[in-house]
């Protein structure tokens, strides 16, 4: 029988959402439209339309050594052209954000080639060759794992994921990169990810309502959401992994 990855344990909606997002066979739902130019502006690495700065000559001109691995691995478009490695970084509120840093790294490593995801406590960064990063960033921001109010695109000064929400239900941002438009009831980015003002605001659409967020979150939260302890299968597996890791230090058997 062919191996079928399970991605993770658990019977709760949170566990199911985690499995769903990690599964490359599941196409992430598109929730909003962001143009290519807007993605470039949000990241702030280059001016829209400008040529991609390079870190090395194109591979075709570089005169690569004969190497069997290089023959096996097809380089990304950005690597072929010698693009710089750039990043996009997200912060996810613990108040029912539709994704969270560890899961972002898992799903990016599973779904995309040539990326270097990194998880920190309240933020998650993904690095890639610039032109490929722009495609990935567009997909991530347009998809269901991004929420306008509970997820932030933050290159620096990320503080806020564990704080209370503000009166509009938005995650705190020290740099106010995004603002809530009460008339349109949408969220608009007025600064790029490192806090430089944008010439015109970028609309990233409406934030999900509480019902949608609680149904689609990947974060256990006993304060109004799905409590970790309520998913006994998940607890059992986490305890099993913890126990085996501890025991293996002394004796490699159960």
């Amino acid at each position, binding site marked *: 029988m062919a191996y079928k990855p399970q991605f993770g344990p658990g019977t709760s909606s949170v566990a199911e959402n985690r499995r769903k997002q990690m599964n490359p066979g599941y196409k992430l739902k598109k929730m909003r439209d962001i143009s290519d130019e807007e993605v470039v502006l949000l990241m702030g690495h280059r001016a829209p339309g400008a040529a991609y700065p390079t870190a090395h000559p194109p591979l075709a001109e570089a005169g690569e050594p004969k190497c069997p691995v290089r023959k096996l691995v097809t380089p990304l478009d950005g690597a072929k052209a010698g693009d710089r490695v750039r990043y996009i970084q997200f912060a996810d509120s613990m108040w029912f954000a539709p994704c969270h840093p560890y899961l972002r790294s898992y799903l990016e490593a599973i779904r995309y080639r040539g990326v270097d995801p990194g998880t920190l406590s309240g933020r998650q960064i993904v690095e890639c060759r610039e032109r490929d990063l722009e495609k990935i960033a567009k997909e991530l921001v347009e998809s269901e794992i991004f929420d306008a109010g509970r997820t932030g695109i933050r290159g*620096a000064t990320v503080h806020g994921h564990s704080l209370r*929400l*503000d*009166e509009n239900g938005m995650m705190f941002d020290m740099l106010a990169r995004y603002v809530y438009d009460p008339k349109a009831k949408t969220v608009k980015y007025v600064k790029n990810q490192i*806090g*430089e003002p944008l010439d015109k605001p970028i609309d990233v659409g409406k934030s999900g309502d509480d019902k949608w967020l609680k149904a689609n979150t990947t974060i256990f939260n006993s304060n109004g959401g799905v409590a970790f302890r309520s998913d006994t299968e998940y607890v059992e597996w986490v305890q099993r992994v913890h126990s085996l890791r501890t025991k293996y230090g002394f004796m490699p058997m159960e």
Partner: protein
Amino acid sequence: MTEAEYPQVRIVPERLLFPITVERLLTAIVATGGVRRMSLNGPRLPAVVPYGPARGVENPHYARRKIRVGDQDVLLEVQVGTVVLELEDASYIPRIREACESVFTEFPFTIQEGRFMKTRMTVTDYAKYGPDMDKDLLGLTEPGKKGRLIIIQGGK
């Protein structure tokens, strides 16, 4: 001689507050007349981007704004998350609660009673203010703060 101990309360709303709500709350609290000292806490809102590639760039923020409390303008340098009050006596607590209930209509809040301001000088306080530090400043200062305290007159 034992120094008088004044009751302290901490107001914790479920949401971080906008300046307009803070202004309404503080106006209602000041009107009760029993507040000796008050401290607003929350995440900081720097005037310029503090770090990262954009360090030093101006940081306009919708929550960093001047509000009017009593007879004074107060520049909010934090997004207010908790308000700590020291009261003349415990009889003002129900009035403070009523003031909060009149302002926090959209989301819940809690009022805790206890000690929320420090009672003894720290090394930093000693270095900054010397051995004869005004006791009223205790608990209202923080090491990096450069501005002065704001005194709101006419509470009574």
